[in-house]
């Protein structure tokens, strides 16, 4: 049953990462900050509300959040974490997971366009543009890991990366980690790409697409994003903290510590730099692609 526990923990703990990020930012701002469990309170509050649907929207608008959350939960089931293999795995599932991320985005974009609002259309256009650049960086990064470990499933890849891999292909892994960090920040709508806290619709990317969702739908979206944060975080932590002793407590503890450190790092990044100008975001993402490509060339060499 060990392989099911980490997926369950992911479902349970994902919103906590957001709480840690918020708390870190509050520390830098000199505030006490919201409780660590605030994201859970928010979800509970939203689930208790009714939903309002505009008459101009169709079933696509209602399907968006459900499909998004379902795809994220499915992706979670393919993510190995803390040295354990994932509940489900097959050769090539890394493409499947990337595809699920794409599916979520596709439906979020469709739901946004379905409202007919100028804001949401703008957000959808930005999301489509930036994710088109973030995806190659992710896939090339995964290709490096696949080549390095000789495996095509995420579980196999993560088993294949150990502390000793860093001694052999350290530079490549550094490059991939940097690229994945950029993808992590982009996909999760964090600074320097997006500002999850802004109230200014004109500057938003991800947030503006979900403005018209409310109640349980919005809870699904928030929870789905938390899971996404967890999934991409797992990938990054699995790479950066490759503790594979076989002892569940040590491996799991190292993983948990890694996730905590990643959340704090995200909070620190958000607290110490401003957002990029929107036209500069593609430069950053192309940079990520370049890093991944360079790593791929190095491992193929």
């Amino acid at each position, binding site marked *: 049953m060990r392989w099911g526990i980490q997926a369950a923990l992911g479902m349970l703990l994902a919103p906590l990462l957001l709480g840690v990020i918020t708390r870190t*930012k509050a520390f*830098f*701002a*000199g*505030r006490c900050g919201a409780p660590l469990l605030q994201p859970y309170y928010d979800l509970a509050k939203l689930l208790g509300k009714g939903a309002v649907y505009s008459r101009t929207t169709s079933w696509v608008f209602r399907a968006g959040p459900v499909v998004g959350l379902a795809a994220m939960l499915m992706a979670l089931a393919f993510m190995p974490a803390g040295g354990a293999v994932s509940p489900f795995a097959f050769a090539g599932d890394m493409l499947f997971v990337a595809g699920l991320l794409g599916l979520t985005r596709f439906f979020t974009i469709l739901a946004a366009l379905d409202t007919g609002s*100028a*804001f949401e*259309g*703008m957000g959808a*256009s*930005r999301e489509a543009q930036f994710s088109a650049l973030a995806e190659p960086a992710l896939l090339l990064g995964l290709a490096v890991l696949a080549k390095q470990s000789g495996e095509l499933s995420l579980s196999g890849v993560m088993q294949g990366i150990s502390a000793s891999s860093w001694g052999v292909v350290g530079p490549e892994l550094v490059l991939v980690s940097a690229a994945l960090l950029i993808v992590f920040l982009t996909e999760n709508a964090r*600074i*320097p790409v997006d*500002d999850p*806290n*802004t*109230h*200014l*619709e*004109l*500057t938003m990317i991800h947030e503006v697409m979900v403005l018209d969702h409310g109640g349980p739908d919005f809870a699904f979206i928030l929870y789905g994003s938390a899971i996404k944060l967890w999934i991409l975080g797992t990938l990054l932590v699995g790479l950066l903290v490759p503790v594979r002793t076989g002892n569940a407590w040590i491996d799991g503890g190292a993983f948990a510590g890694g996730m905590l450190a990643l959340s704090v790092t995200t909070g620190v990044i*958000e*607290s*110490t*730099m*401003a*957002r*990029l*100008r*929107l*036209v*500069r975001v593609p430069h950053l993402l192309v940079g990520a692609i370049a890093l991944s490509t360079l790593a791929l060339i190095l491992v193929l060499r």
Partner: protein
Amino acid sequence: MSVLVLRNGEAADVRKIPSLSVTDFRRVVLEEVARGSRIAAFFGRPDHERMRLVAVLANAAEATLSLCSAEVGDAYPSLTPDCPQAHWFEREIQEQWGVRPEGHPWLKPIRFHRPYRGGSVGEVLPGATDFFRVEGEEVHEVAVGPVHAGIIEPGHFRFQCHGEKVFHLEISLGYQHRGAERALAGGPGKRSIPIVETVAGDTTIGHALAYAEALEGLGRTRVSARAQALRGIALELERLANHAGDVGALANDVGYLPTAAYCGRIRGDFLNLTALLCGNRFGRGFVRPGGVGFDLEPARASQLLERLQRALEDVRVAVNLLWDTSSVMARFEGTGEVSRQTCEELGLVGPAARASGVERDARQDFPAGIFRFAHIPVSTCDSGDVYARAYVRWLEIQRSVAFIRDQVASLPSGETLVKTAPPGPDRICVSLVEGWRGEICHVATTDEAGRFAAYKIVDPSFHNWIGLAMALRGQQISDFPLCNKSFNLSYCGHDL
């Protein structure tokens, strides 16, 4: 003489304003503007069944205000094609009095209210007008407001965009129109001061000071040196609080947390200094015609200095973080540029004008009260972008603190409040005050009984909203909030 020349806060017989033919009026205004004057106020007032247009032209080099007027019928040839800075005033005149400036390129309401005379117009709804449109397959329109996310005032913005690029921004206001000017007519009375203090709540001291100086001019009341110094202190404290808040808000808009968080707190520290002065954080009840409502005893004065010093140290750290962070500078520099030429043609005022290199500051150009004796250097910057508008604010923060320190250290003795003489009959007085947003202009006219026949208020926002529209041309739509915050204009001050 084709103009009546006044000083800031000086009153004259209203009948001495030369009445010119419309042709001469246009010629005189255009000549004065060509000579370097700026339209500080331009309004209509009823004069024995006819309408009279009055222009107040401010000449900074000579520190004079030139007034001239013309009697008009239902229409007159517009000044705007020859003098762009008249455009908003002419729209106001058309809306208020139904006098049509012929040839005005963009004649639409600015506040959406019924005209003051010749009723029989149907319901007037805010924002119900023809908006400028750019046609084309790839052009899209984005409408923002009047209800915004966040706690800000209502205003409607229409962007004509090509992708992320803004071709044109049209700003439609009027949602906050309360009729402040009309409510002041018939005064001065007990209600006058509260109305003036709430023309723009964040500029309480600025507007109250302009009102007080106008009233003192009309009644020839002499205010003690002590009261003048205290007014200067309050005015600069208001500037400090708002500038500190603005710099923090700019940081917030680019997602830079530390400065945003600390400046938000420091703004409160400055507001609390105003509260130390008079018990109200926004300075309500401090400025009164004839002086100030509260004295500053030595004990509170030393407390004020000490807390001011601490707030300055804090704001210095928070603001310097901005200049030292390259990701912030990358957002500020080159965003929302307004050229010096645009600035002068449109008659922008305040930090927005000074950020484009225009040395325009009513404290220096038209000094009144304490500013006749104590000078604050004018802070300018050349680039005209968001960075410049932020940097000018930082310079002004430092200079205002230095000014307050000097003034508190050498407070003259004297009465804080003297009784004002009632305004004389048939008089006019123009008072200019450099509020934190820029030049505040009040024009008070009395009738034969010495009551306000008309009271004209020009908030700096009235001049500057068009500057924001210009700053957005060719910019990214995602930079609008940042540009908007760098101007930080008042909706209610414009809408009156």
